C-alpha cells in the first residue's frame, strides 16, 4: 500500500464506471477500543462482495481523502482514506490507516469477488 495519489485514484475510479463490480466496504473503531478507553463506543461494520455499479465518482479532500460513487439508486461514500494499492491492475484497493498504522476504514472495488 502507498499513500494516495489522488490523480491516479481518480483515473482508476473513472476506469471502473458503468460496470458490475464487487465491493468491500468496511469501517471499524477497533475491537479493543472500549477496553482501552471506556468512554469510547466500539463499532464496526463491513459488507463484502455485494455487487454494485456506479456511473460517476470522485476522490476529494486534502488527506485523509473522501470518495463518493453515484449509483443508479444511491451512493457509496467513504471518508478517512489514506492509502491505496498502486500495483493493482483491475482492482481499486483503498484504506484509511491511523497514525499507528491501524486500519480504520476501507473501500475496495473489483470485477472479481474478493
Amino acid at each position, binding site marked *: 500500500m502507498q499513500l494516495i495519489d489522488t490523480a491516479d485514484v481518480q483515473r482508476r475510479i473513472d476506469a471502473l464506471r458503468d460496470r458490475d463490480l464487487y465491493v468491500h466496504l468496511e469501517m471499524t473503531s477497533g475491537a479493543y477500543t472500549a477496553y482501552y478507553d471506556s468512554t469510547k463506543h466500539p463499532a464496526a461494520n463491513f459488507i463484502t462482495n455485494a455487487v454494485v455499479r456506479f456511473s*460517476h*465518482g*470522485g476522490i*476529494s*479532500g486534502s488527506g485523509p481523502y*473522501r*470518495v*463518493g*460513487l*453515484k449509483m443508479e439508486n*444511491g*451512493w457509496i*461514500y467513504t471518508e478517512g482514506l489514506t492509502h491505496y494499492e498502486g500495483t493493482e491492475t483491475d482492482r481499486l484497493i483503498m484504506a484509511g490507516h491511523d497514525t499507528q498504522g491501524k486500519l480504520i476504514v476501507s473501500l475496495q472495488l473489483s470485477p472479481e469477488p474478493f
Partner: protein
Amino acid sequence: MNKKILVVLPHPDDESFGLSGTLAKHVQDGDRITYACLTLGEMGRNMGNPPFASRVTLPAVRKLELEESCRAIGIQDLRLLGFRDKTIEFEEEELLDGRIGELLEELRPSVVYTFYPGYAVHPDHDACGEAVVRTVGRLPRESRPPVRCMAFARDHEDAIGKPDVVHDVREFLKPKLASIRAHRSQFNVPGIDSDKAYKSRELQERFGTERFWTYRFDR
C-alpha cells in the same frame, strides 16, 4: 423593498446560527425569500438525545424541522432540491449548477446567501458555495447578484480578511432562537427554550451578530 433573496445551503439547520436573523430582517423589510436546501441532512448523526429519530425517519423529521424553522423566520418559499447529504462535492457539476442556474434565471435575486467556498468546514458547505459562485460567475458581470458568504473555518480571516457585511440582529433574536429550537433533533442549546430567552443579554451577545463576506469574482 420587495427584493428577491435567494438562499442556497446544503442542510436543514444551516440557516439557523449564521443567517436566520438577517433573513428575518429581510422579511420585515418586505423582501421575498426563496430558500433552496440541497439535502435533507439525512446522514446526520444527531437524532435527539435520547434518540427520537432513526436513520430511516431522520429525513422526514428534519424536513418538518426545516419547515418549522422557515415559518419562524418568515421564509415564504422553501425548495427542497433532493440531493443527498455528504455527496454534494461528488455530484455531477452540470446537474448541481443546472438546478442553481434555474433558480437564478427564475428569480433574478438581488442577493444570494450561501457558504464561503473553502472556508465553511463541512465538505457539503464548501461544495455548495463553490457551485453557487461557479453558477453566478457564469452570468454576465453586470447581472451578477452579490453573493454573501458565511465562513467559519479556523483562521479564515487570515485568508479572506474581515467580513464586509456585519448585521446586528439582536432585534431579530426571537425568530432566530425559534429557528434554532425548530431543529430539535440537531441542536440542544441550553437556555433558549423560555419565551423570554430573546431578551437575555447573554444570548444577545452570543447570537446577535451575523457576518458575511461578499464573494469577489475578480480574485
